[in-house]
């Protein structure tokens, strides 16, 4: 049973006094009302759960993976892997940890959690899940989801995912997340009760907005560009790295063949025999050393993969901004045209084309009473529109402010993590070289004794 090393940065921070983005959008407020006792809408320091859960330091670990069979929604037999999530709270005084919760979850539940977070925190760069299917595999690595190495790497990835959320100043306070860790049964129903799926923006709407938005914030355009580049370069890197790993594996393993042949040859040699035999042994050691080396490198690849998937999370925030901005632009446009219409009716001039204008031309003028009525309606609509535009503007600015704050936080995290990953890669290479020197020095000694 493995645990992630105690990383102070990964443990839960006590809740900040002025939590960011608690009142970002009306959406959140609405949800707060609907979900029964699930979340508090409104601002203020919150301990949204019954006790000061988050004020204690906690440790989260995905400690085990187990193969299970069960029946799916279509009542067919299926095999899946379940992961054990253990939560411990650490007492301040003596640093001892006490197991507070432990439950089993499968990958699809993690997905559900993430989808929920994406909908309710569109201004946050939501941490990504480890890959669903094995990609960037090289020859020895299995693409099978049930393969124990894959399951093990996924277990680590899922733990990482939970730790990322738990260390995020805003996401860590989410009730659904808390329940994910603590409420085994009924959690899925609770999530679905929030009806978050209904509130998700349709992909079509988002796509439309991306194409038609006129004045998105320049920083988001740049960010989108950056995330595309990041995704492309990391994919390329991972692909070539996998090929390099494959080749390296070949080089090491072929040397293993020397071991067998040397040993057989040593049988007919009187003076050379011992040297050959022992050199052969070192060739075997060399050949088998590659397995551990490449396993370590997979860990490096996983660290890069996380940021590959983060690129998509960045794009999601950009899309939300584009959507809001487009919405704003449409509302402003609509308002402008209504004002225009109103003006035209009031002054009697027709400057813009309107159906009403055409019909009046064709079928004769309307009565002054009719005109008055229409002006009144329009004026009401304009009023409403102006209010809406004001609040949309405010929302938009809040979104940009909060999103940008999280993006800055993300940037710092990314720079730290990637730098650490690159350095650990160097450390791996150093270890590989040292092993190589050791083995070949031993082999050389055997050869020179032949």
């Amino acid at each position, binding site marked *: 049973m493995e645990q992630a090393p105690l990383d102070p940065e990964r443990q839960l921070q006590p809740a900040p006094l002025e939590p960011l983005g608690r009142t970002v959008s009306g959406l959140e407020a609405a949800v707060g009302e609907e979900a029964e006792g699930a979340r508090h809408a409104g601002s203020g320091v919150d301990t949204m759960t019954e006790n000061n859960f988050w004020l204690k330091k906690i440790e989260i670990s995905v400690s085990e993976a187990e193969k299970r069979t069960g029946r799916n929604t279509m009542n067919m037999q299926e095999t899946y892997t379940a992961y054990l999530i253990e939560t411990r709270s650490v007492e301040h005084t003596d640093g001892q940890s006490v197991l507070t919760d432990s439950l089993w979850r499968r990958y699809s539940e993690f997905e559900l959690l993430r989808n929920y977070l994406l909908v309710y925190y569109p201004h946050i760069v939501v941490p990504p899940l480890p890959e669903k299917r094995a990609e960037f595999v090289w020859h020895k690595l299995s693409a099978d989801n049930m393969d124990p190495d894959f399951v093990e790497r996924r277990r680590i990835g899922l733990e990482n995912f939970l730790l990322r959320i738990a260390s995020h100043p805003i996401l860590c306070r989410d009730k659904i997340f808390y329940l994910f860790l603590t409420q085994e049964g009924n959690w899925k129903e609770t999530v679905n009760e929030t009806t978050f799926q209904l509130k998700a923006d349709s992909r079509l709407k988002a796509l439309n907005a991306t194409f038609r938005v006129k004045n998105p914030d320049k920083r988001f355009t740049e960010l989108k560009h950056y995330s595309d580049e990041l995704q492309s370069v990391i994919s390329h890197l991972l692909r070539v790295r996998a090929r390099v790993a494959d080749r390296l594996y070949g080089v090491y393993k072929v*040397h293993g063949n020397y071991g067998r042949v040397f040993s057989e040859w040593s049988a007919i040699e009187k003076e050379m025999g011992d040297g050959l035999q022992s050199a052969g042994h070192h060739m075997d050691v060399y050949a088998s050393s590659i397995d551990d080396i490449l396993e370590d490198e997979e860990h490096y690849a996983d660290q890069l993969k996380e940021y590959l998937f983060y690129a998509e999370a960045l794009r999601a925030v950009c899309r939300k901004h584009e959507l809001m901005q487009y919405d704003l632009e449409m509302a402003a446009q609509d308002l402008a045209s209504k004002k225009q219409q109103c003006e035209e009716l009031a002054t009697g001039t027709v400057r813009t084309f309107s159906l009403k204008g055409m019909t009046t031309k064709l079928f004769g003028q309307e009565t002054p009473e009719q005109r008055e009525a229409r002006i009144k309606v329009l004026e009401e609509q304009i009023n409403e529109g102006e209010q809406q535009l004001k609040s949309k503007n405010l929302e938009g600015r809040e979104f940009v402010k909060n999103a940008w704050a999280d993006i800055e936080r993300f940037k710092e995290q990314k720079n730290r993590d990637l730098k650490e990953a690159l350095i650990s890669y*160097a450390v791996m290479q*150093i270890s590989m070289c040292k092993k190589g020197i050791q083995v070949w020095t031993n082999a050389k000694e055997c050869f020179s004794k*032949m």
Partner: protein
Amino acid sequence: MDMNSFSPMMPTSPLSMINQIKFEDDPDLKDLFITVDEPESHVTTIETFITYRIITKTSRGEFDSSEFEVRRRYQDFLWLKGKLEEAHPTLIIPPLPEKFIVKGMVERFNDDFIETRRKALHKFLNRIADHPTLTFNEDFKVFLTAQAWELSSHKKQGPGLLSRMGQTVRAVASSMRGVKNRPEEFMEMNNFIEIFSQKINLIDKISQRIYKEEREYLDEMKEYGPIYILWSASEEDLVDTLKDVASCIDKCCKATEKRISGLSEALLPVVHEYVLYSEMLMGVMKRRDQIQAELDSKVEALTYKKADTDLLTEEIGKLEDKVECANNALKADWERWKQNMQNDIKSAFTDMAEENIHYYEQCLATWESLLMSQTDLHLEEASEEKP
């Protein structure tokens, strides 16, 4: 004793041969230096072929001059080898590189092939020069010194092609009998040769495969480094680290190139030569067996009184001498060959191990310096933060 040519009629005791071995293998007393270089292509209407320049420097009296320069083609080497085998059927004649390599050859005369062949031909002639008996062979001398036309006319002398073919047929027929009566020590030798041949062939294949895998690894690595540079273009804060990683990978590529060329220069030719040697050894065993078979058939004939007994007895006497000479020659040469083999294999593999150690040391140094520069940077940043 006439040292200029060795004939089966002239018995040479193993003891005198051993004395010769000591004399000939001492580098200070070496008096025949041969180099093979400058391959040149010749085009005629019928064919295209390559000749190699052979320079011989010697202080030996029997040579008319102290320096010779001639051009020879592969066919000429084949002729020389044939003559040596004829004159010394149970000596271990050095092997020639293959006539052609079918697998993976695009054109017969690509540069790598020519260079590999040149080196092997150089080895071939030097091995003959270092051999205590073969070095004094007359055909060898002609090969090194005669001009083209002189060589052609010299080649025309000696037993014709047909008679040589006749010999081969008889050889196959009688070699089977020779195997049955093979003395114990030659049984052991044959056993060694069979197993050695198997193993050295495997080692040759393994070594070639390693070369191939390392080449492919290098190709992938060359593509790998530049991606980090590409990445650094979009990351302001990671530029240095990414560029450093790319440069480390690049340095490792260079180290890999050196490792690969070390393999192809030191290990592969040596192992391959011994593959050819193992074939050569099997031929030598066959020839020894054949000589013995000749004797045995005559002895059999005597037992069954098939022909004139006096004549037979005289022939048997001569053949017994012949067999004894052949066996002694082989025994002595075998010991010499084994010693050489041991030294060659030992140094080839020791060199390979050395190359690999050097490779890993270079890579280690480059990654360690990256680590140091990163931690230095880190310490710098940390100290900057403290006002």
